[in-house]
């Protein structure tokens, strides 16, 4: 499974999203705000835990990492850059 798809499944599971399947999330969809899947600030910190728990990737400052949390694609790129995962 691609890292992108894996992340989509983890996001749905760990953030307890309902009424949405991994297939419905596009790699470029905005994660936050009304124009995307509509995550909020509490989801953002839960995403930080998700990255730590599943990829041992640490995020210390949300402001500095704002771009990383744009979409599944940016998240996946970030994980790849930190872990060298494919």
């Amino acid at each position, binding site marked *: 499974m691609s890292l992108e798809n894996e992340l989509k499944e983890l996001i749905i599971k760990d953030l307890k999203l309902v009424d949405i399947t991994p297939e419905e999330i596009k790699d470029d969809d905005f994660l936050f705000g009304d124009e995307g899947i509509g995550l909020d*600030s509490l989801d953002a*910190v839960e995403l930080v835990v998700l990255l730590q728990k599943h990829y041992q990737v640490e995020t*210390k400052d*949300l402001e500095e990492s704002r771009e990383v949390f744009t979409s599944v694609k940016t998240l996946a790129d970030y994980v790849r850059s930190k872990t060298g995962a494919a």
Partner: protein
Amino acid sequence: MQAGITGLGCICAAGDSLDEIMPALYSANRNPAPSKRVEAGLENLPPVFEIASDLNHINPGNDETRTTLLLLSAVNEALSQSGLEADYLKKKRVGVVIGTTVGSTLNNEPFYRAYRAGKFPDMQPIKRYLTNNPALYIANRYQWDGPAVTIANACSSGTDAVGMAKSWLRGGLCDIVIAGGSDELCRTTYLGFNSLLNTSPEPCRPFDKFRKGLNLGEGAGILIIEKERSAQERGAKILAFVAGYASSGDAYHPTGPHPEGAGLSRAINIALQEANARPEQISFINAHGTSTVDNDKVEGKVIEQIFSDKVPFVSTKAYTGHTLGAAGGIEAVLSVRALLDGQIPATAGFKDFDEECKVAPTTNNTPIKGNMAMSNSLAFGGNNSVLILKAGQ
């Protein structure tokens, strides 16, 4: 009916009593550091404002929680200042209202780890939890039979406790109230706030442009509040009055404040009304000022809207850290002392003006005019509570 404050007690990282704490504040003395008691598996341990002592001297030979010991320390100091003797108190109806977070939560980690591991731990930690509900503990210990209530309203609990004391006296529920808050540092809140990414890796900088979050703290702040007339009858000095209290919800988000501070504005205006005061009559504000990005931005904006830049304000969390359920109690106590001292301390850590906050806190010990202080508390879940304290004659 006026609610007169006749005694104050406080313990926090800045000192074990007010006579230690105030000089530390006025000399901008602080020393947040990684905890010596609370261990955490984090690489960079966010500093905290911790009380070094194990507090065992407060009630030797017993099995109280740290929250209870902190509370006892502040209650003893406040009672001693008020001049209230045990015999006198037995004849009066004494109420107790205490804010806390850790003190009301069954989160004993060693017990739970043992339970999870199938080791069938004994009940002592649960019994300790059941006998250490802060307000009930104090009421039972001194055998006072007025109302006893523990408030678990997150970070506004201590402020709400003082507000409730005023309401009890007004409604005739009791003659004297022991009010305030108490909270200990523990792994649950330490790791919890860390997970919310709002703890600062460095000493906090309330309202500073480059602030990085809060430092947790621990402590207790207690006020003895009685009906003005009964305080006068026993010849007690009234230090200050609880002139106004209001609380108002944002109904916005479980952890973030309303971006325009709607609830805080409403609470400040209602509290001013209750105190019969205009904004320009407020001598100073002890801000919630946690040093998180969101809190200070919203609070600064509201302060600017209501008070423009005419009223000096300080965040004493720069010296105590964020003591959660105790914060409102501690800050009310420090506000009364500052009113009596005629000055407020500098907000340690603040250097660079943040345009988003719109206003700047004190940078030096600042003399104050007038006789009214305001103390703000903004809680998790969007509750905003505001106290107005007026110096006694």
